[in-house]
């Protein structure tokens, strides 16, 4: 007998997993946050998901506070942030670049500060039961700033570019299920991986199940550009700033300023701010704070941990904190000596006292890492037995590996983040008792990014991603461009495939045990901590909340002047 499709009151098909999810929420097997997240990922609108959760948990609908202020229109938000290149959004490698572009070019989906992914340029989506086929209904009536209609051709064009190795986009790792290997070891998009169903419907056909497709579509290099980008005109957004967003580019100078001006005819209605100005205050973090203190800017993109006390002392300044899955990993290339010896890597990892590094290098503001790059705030995080520092075990491992002591190692690290150096200085002391002498090689941030995937031993920062499987797919799966450790383990890939294909939080969490354990035991990384991130605004800025990835969502921001 054919399985009967479940439909909601509007006749729209709902994913068969939804009833089970509701049941889980009722019995307490999943919490409200996880329910909202999964339901909206499966195509239930965020409003409906909140309503469902409210009904199941017997909550009253939130009543708008009477004291809430009425937002004011107008004004210019000035934000202190590095102004970087604005060429091809799919090749961006800094969130600052994506923030400059964020109000010009939009995304198919949008993950809020609450970790829930909602519709954006895609109005709704549906996943097949096996999570291999994803159908996106695109919003109608959206116009590009040049007057063209936004449609399926735009989306197909973007996917085609992202998955073309010649373009050099990291998205090729995010959508690995749409890519195949060629005979000469290269990669290319599988024929028919992206399919135009009609003018406003696009289907993605994946070779492997993937739950995080909607979330991947809000990753920073996935801004949707116009279908003529790189075809009818040069792939350079600054010279051809065509977008669907509420703002247009009015002035742009790398290293100095990026000004955005509200444009007429935005599909989602009016936004509050007339203009958004990004002002580059250079690499000195104290300069942006001085600018905030003297009223030259209203928002500081990122406040370094060393400056949080200073912000708290400035009158009218507000510090914003987000607990995130941002981290740094001391990663070892598994194909370069001496790290090609598993025991050496395990010895290095065994020496780390994670809590101590967190305290010394990041003032305890964050969570401890566990060498498997899945964060306690991730919904699928599985709690493995706590790691403890074990110098004796490290010594034994080194003896088994037959290396001569003292073992001299050199780690490369960028100086852009001060805590990297502090963390590695602490780690150096922790390694010493085991007979490992660690030499630190600090270098300018940009120089580090030249060698980040080449050096045998390096300390690399990774940004927050809403799901644990996302970063594992990007950085640890065999052969993906950002696999900086050259780690290649078929067992890990298989376990990761399985976890990535599992819908339910409980079941996925169970499968993550294996994934996390393999990575932890293979000691590819020594990961000290998960860090909180901070930003600051003046008290005049309303409706702002910090995003864990430092993505700017200023559409609801207004100035109380």
């Amino acid at each position: 007998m054919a399985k009967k499709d479940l439909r909601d009151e509007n006749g729209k098909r709902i994913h068969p997993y939804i009833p089970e999810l509701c049941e889980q929420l009722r019995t307490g097997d999943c919490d409200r946050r996880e329910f909202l997240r999964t339901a909206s990922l499966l195509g239930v609108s965020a409003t409906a998901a909140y309503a469902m959760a409210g009904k199941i948990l017997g909550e009253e609908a939130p009543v708008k506070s009477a004291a809430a202020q009425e937002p004011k229109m107008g004004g210019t938000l000035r934000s202190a942030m590095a102004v970087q290149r604005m060429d091809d959004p799919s090749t961006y490698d800094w969130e600052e670049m994506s923030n400059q572009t964020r109000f010009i070019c939009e995304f198919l989906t949008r993950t809020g500060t609450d970790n829930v992914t909602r519709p954006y340029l895609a109005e709704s989506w549906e996943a097949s039961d096996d999570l291999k086929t994803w159908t996106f209904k695109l919003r109608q009536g959206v116009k590009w700033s040049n007057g063209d209609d936004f449609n399926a051709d735009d989306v197909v064009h973007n996917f085609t570019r992202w998955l073309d190795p010649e373009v050099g986009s990291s998205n090729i790792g995010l959508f690995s299920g749409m890519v195949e290997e060629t005979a000469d070891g290269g990669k290319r998009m599988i024929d028919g991986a992206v399919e135009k169903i009609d003018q406003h419907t696009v289907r993605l056909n994946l070779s492997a199940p993937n739950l995080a497709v909607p979330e991947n579509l809000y990753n920073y290099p996935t801004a949707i550009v116009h279908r003529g980008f790189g075809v009818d005109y040069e792939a350079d957004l600054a010279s051809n700033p065509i977008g669907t967003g509420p703002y247009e580019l009015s002035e742009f100078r790398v290293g100095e300023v990026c000004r955005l001006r509200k444009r007429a005819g935005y599909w989602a209605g009016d936004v509050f701010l007339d203009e958004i100005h990004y002002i580059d205050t250079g690499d000195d973090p104290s300069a942006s704070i001085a600018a905030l203190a003297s009223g030259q800017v209203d928002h500081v993109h990122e406040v370094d941990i060393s400056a949080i006390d200073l912000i708290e002392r400035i009158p009218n300044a507000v510090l914003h904190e987000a607990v995130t899955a941002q981290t740094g990993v001391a990663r070892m290339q598994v194909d370069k000596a001496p790290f090609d010896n598993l025991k050496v890597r395990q010895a290095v990892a065994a020496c780390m006292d994670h809590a101590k590094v967190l305290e010394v290098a990041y003032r305890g503001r964050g969570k401890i890492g566990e060498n498997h790059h899945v964060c306690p705030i991730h919904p699928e995080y599985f709690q493995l037995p706590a790691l403890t520092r074990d110098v004796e075990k490290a010594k034994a491992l080194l003896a088994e590996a037959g290396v001569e002591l003292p073992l001299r190692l050199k780690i490369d690290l960028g100086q852009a983040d001060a805590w990297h150096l502090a963390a590695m200085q602490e780690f150096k002391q922790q390694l010493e008792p085991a007979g490992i002498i660690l030499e630190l090689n600090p270098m300018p941030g940009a120089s580090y990014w030249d060698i980040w995937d080449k050096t045998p031993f390096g300390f690399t920062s990774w940004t927050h991603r809403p799901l644990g499987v996302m970063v594992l797919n990007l950085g640890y799966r065999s052969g993906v461009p950002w696999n900086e450790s050259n780690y290649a383990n078929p067992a890990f890939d298989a376990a990761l495939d399985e976890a990535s294909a599992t819908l339910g939080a409980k079941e996925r969490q169970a499968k993550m045990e294996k994934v996390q354990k393999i990575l932890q035991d293979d000691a590819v990384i020594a990961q000290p901590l998960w860090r909180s991130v901070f930003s600051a605004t003046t008290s005049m800025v309303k409706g702002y909340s910090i995003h864990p990835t430092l993505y700017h969502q200023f559409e609801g921001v207004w100035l109380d002047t």
Partner: protein
Amino acid sequence: MLIFITRRVASMVLTMIAVSMLLFAALEVNIENVAVKVLGPYSSLEQREIWLERNGYFDPIYVRYARWLGDFAVGDFGESIRFKTEVSEVMVPRLINTAILALCVFAVVIPVALVLGVLSGMREGSKLDRSISVTSIVTTSVPEFASAPLLSVVFVFWLGLLPGTSGMAAGFDPIQLILPAAVLIIYDFGYVTRMTRASMAEVMTTNYIRTAVLKGLPYRRVIVRHALRNALIAPFTVIMLQVNWLLSGVIVVEYFFAYKGFGALLLEASLNQDIYLIEACAMVAVFVAVMTQALADIGYTYLNPRIRFS
């Protein structure tokens, strides 16, 4: 004099050629490195080969050097990797900004330092001399990286009187020049004062000044007519050398106050390994260095008759 100037210019050109060779050797000999910097770390080997071929990087090294030098001589510095535009388009406004800052600094430092130096050197060991000397030694010994945060704490965070950064994002604003200029003035005026004082004090001990005093000339006339002319020759050279310092030595101040000047550009270029920009900045800095030195020498010769007529 003409022979002297010709000689100076020739040695200037030679110095610059020597530096350009070093620069070329450091940055352009390893062509693989150039291609990686220009095309980015994710470029394929094939792309790099094509780019190198198209830009003549496979020519013999002397051909490449000659072409490179020729381009430089006519002001074609290539395209900046970070700014994605002609190097000169980035560099010229930055040079102008630094020149504005330098002018503000000179406008205060030169009169203040000369007056204080002369007053101080006129009567060596007097109370006035001691207080000026102590002040100038103290201010000169505080480096910019200490005085900049200090001034910032007082005037930006505490008193709230001055803007914290000087990026001029909303157009030129003279108020924003105050803090960076103040830091440079505090550091520099003491040094020039000390040099002027030394020169003045030396002149004051010479026989012709003693004669002038003894023959009964008014003290004021002795100083203005006789002493100053000779005492100011040495400070002239010192001041010329400050031009060089104000161009590339202001990195700390420009970085701290986010001032978009030449020093900050030099730092940005090296942090981002923007190779054509580094080359252009380095050559400009060297040009200004040798130029000011040559001008100082020529001016010194002109001002000092003992050298002029020897």
